[in-house]
């Protein structure tokens, strides 16, 4: 992306592009400043990507050879041209990595109308339930209030290598009504299953020779406390 190509775009397209890049520009900014902000953002984005060490992905990009259209594409509205919901009450969760999960949900129109008609209805919220490994032990959970218009969130999950379920609730005064619950997902481990000290010397050396350091894999400590255990209602 260069200044000539940005100058070829309408001011609306420039703002759309800025929005896509995560720039919060004041409305009715002069065109020259919008272009300048975009160029800076592109430069930073490019440097971040170079520094990310994301080699496999960068290499893969090369086979999708570029054209001018890539840059024009970037200025288009990213919203899909298909219906964005299916009018159902549902919540799904996908574990993305050891810390984050993508949660998306929907509430059927009839159900939402009924909720809104109830004077006790205050909000929707997600209850993130950590599935307990041992039976009989109370599940830990925390709650996140979501907006009526929200339909997806990225949630930080406190523990790697653990199983979670996300429930969608409506708050009705002091009561809560369960609307939907997700399947159980498990966050992947970020720490080795066995600490190097627990391995025999040869196995520990081979693990190290395999690139533990370059992958920034950390060995399991004797005791690994939850990172934000305080966020849980035990």
């Amino acid at each position, binding site marked *: 992306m260069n200044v000539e190509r940005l100058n070829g775009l309408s001011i609306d397209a420039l703002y759309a592009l800025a929005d896509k890049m995560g720039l919060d520009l004041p409305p009715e900014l002069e065109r020259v400043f919008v272009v300048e902000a975009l160029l800076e953002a592109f430069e930073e984005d490019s440097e971040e990507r170079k520094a*990310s060490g994301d080699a496999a992905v960068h290499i893969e990009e*090369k086979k999708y050879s570029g054209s001018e259209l890539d840059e024009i594409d970037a200025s288009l509205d990213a919203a899909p041209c298909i219906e964005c919901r299916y009018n159902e009450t549902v919540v799904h969760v*996908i574990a993305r990595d050891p810390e984050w999960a993508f949660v998306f949900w929907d509430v059927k129109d009839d159900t939402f109308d009924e909720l809104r008609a109830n004077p006790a209805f205050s909000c929707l919220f997600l209850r993130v339930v950590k599935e307990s490994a041992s039976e009989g032990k109370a599940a830990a959970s925390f709650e996140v209030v979501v907006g009526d218009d929200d339909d997806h969130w990225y949630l930080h999950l406190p523990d790697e290598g653990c199983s979670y379920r996300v429930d969608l609730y409506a708050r009705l005064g002091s009561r809560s009504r369960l609307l939907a619950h997700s399947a159980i997902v498990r966050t992947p481990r970020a720490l080795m299953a066995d600490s190097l000290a627990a391995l025999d010397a040869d196995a520990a050396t081979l693990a190290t020779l395999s690139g533990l350091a370059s992958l920034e894999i950390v060995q399991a400590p004797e005791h690994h406390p939850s990172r934000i255990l305080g966020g849980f209602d035990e």
Partner: protein
Amino acid sequence: MDSGYVALVLNAHLPFVRQPDYPSFLEERWLFESLSETYLPLLRVFARLEADKVPWKLNLAVSPTLEAMLGDSLLQQRYVDWLDAQIELAEKEVARCADDDAFRPLAAMYHELYTKNREDFSVLYGGNIIGALDFYFKKGRIDLMTSGATSAFMPIYRDYPEAIAAQIEAAVVSFRAAFGRSPSGFWMPQLGWYPGVEEPLSAYGLQYSVVSTRGALLGDPTPRSGSYAPVACPNGFTAFIRDVAATEAVWSETSGFPADPVYRDFYRDIGFDLPLDYIGPYVEQQQIRTFTGFKYWAITGPGDQKVPYDAERASLRVEDHVERFLRDRVLQAKAAAKHMGGRTPLMVAPYDAELFGHWWYEGPQWIETLFRLAHHTDEIQFVTLSEYMRTSPENFESVPEFASWGDGGYGGVWLEKSNDWIYRHVFKMIERMTELAERFPNESGLRERVLNQAAREVLLAQASDWPFLLRAGKSGSFARKQIEDAVTNFNRIYEMLCANTVGTEWLTRLEKRNNIFPSINYRVFRRKR
């Protein structure tokens, strides 16, 4: 005396970009460029090695979408037409550069490349690249693997066993149709593994795959040989482990071999440099600038100041890089062998096939030189993964963790703000497809055709290429449209079946357009009990 084994694993994959409704289509060039710069040059490498009786062997995963496109007569004809245009451009370039000592040999080099490609593709192989690969498969040189039907990033679909089974079954069926036998190896798209995926893989007779180093080292329990030997899942499925050092030597965009200043620069292309009235007939729709494949500059260094590419200098550097690669593998193997209790260390080096030639122009030459020089050393032996399994069947039992080779090592590339909207639709498609397969388990005739087309649309929507492209900002509109089309087509079928009306004409048109997986069986989406 072998210090170590090296398994070279190439993953050849492109998404399904066939667009018969248009006279030409920008994204179909991905196939033409890969054929010209990677697949055909690699076949020439294999032929030369055979002719010189150099022992060579490697693993090659051919994705079902690529397999389908390579076997498609429309795309084969379009490729020949494209080659004719490239040869015409090369002739013009030879004339244009006649008085330029630096560029004249390069224009001639491209003229030779495209002329040779035209001859090999049309005359030598009769358009049948799959047949050419099968020739080396049968000779035992290439250990062919299959991959996910549309290269779905499997961990995202782990809650939908029907969708995982469909990705595997369609791939296996398509491999059998192409190569006349069942595959034993399965390339996990993006090396996206999750615990439990070994069960459906085994159920379809698959025996091995490759996992990321991260996934293996985080496996439970921790592998006792690091990445230097595969692990066996409890059900017997073998997971080979990517070797970080061997792959980084080639993979790293900044310090890997392809970044050497003397190699050909990938980005600088006459498609962007020359006036549109000259280059117009060879770019998209005569007006959209795109890569033409004619690149005259060496990487040189950061910045825009480039020196002309010198192919002879680059060839010498290829030898240096092969020597360094082999030397480093010997050192690495010797260091590991001390801790392996007499077992020979294995270093698995998986790469995207299109890296070799398309991006790294000298890549095919590097592979050729690798086998030629390795032939003269007794310290490194190349093996295929099937061969290794036969000779070393006993492996430490462990289940690799969910991981991938993408940025961050997990699923972040295929699930982030630019592409997360996809999953609401694809999950719904899978649920509805399962519902249809349950409601109509024994259909035949027209209704079976409709259901099979619905299953194709689900698979097409699952392709990991679309979220990848959305994230990369490359061909984003195209990627978005592929998903939207698949969702729209599927929903129309769903509604037709719910209303008990089927538009035959529309269905026939759709079957012709999305003609992948002709033998698909929608019943694979029946609920797994």
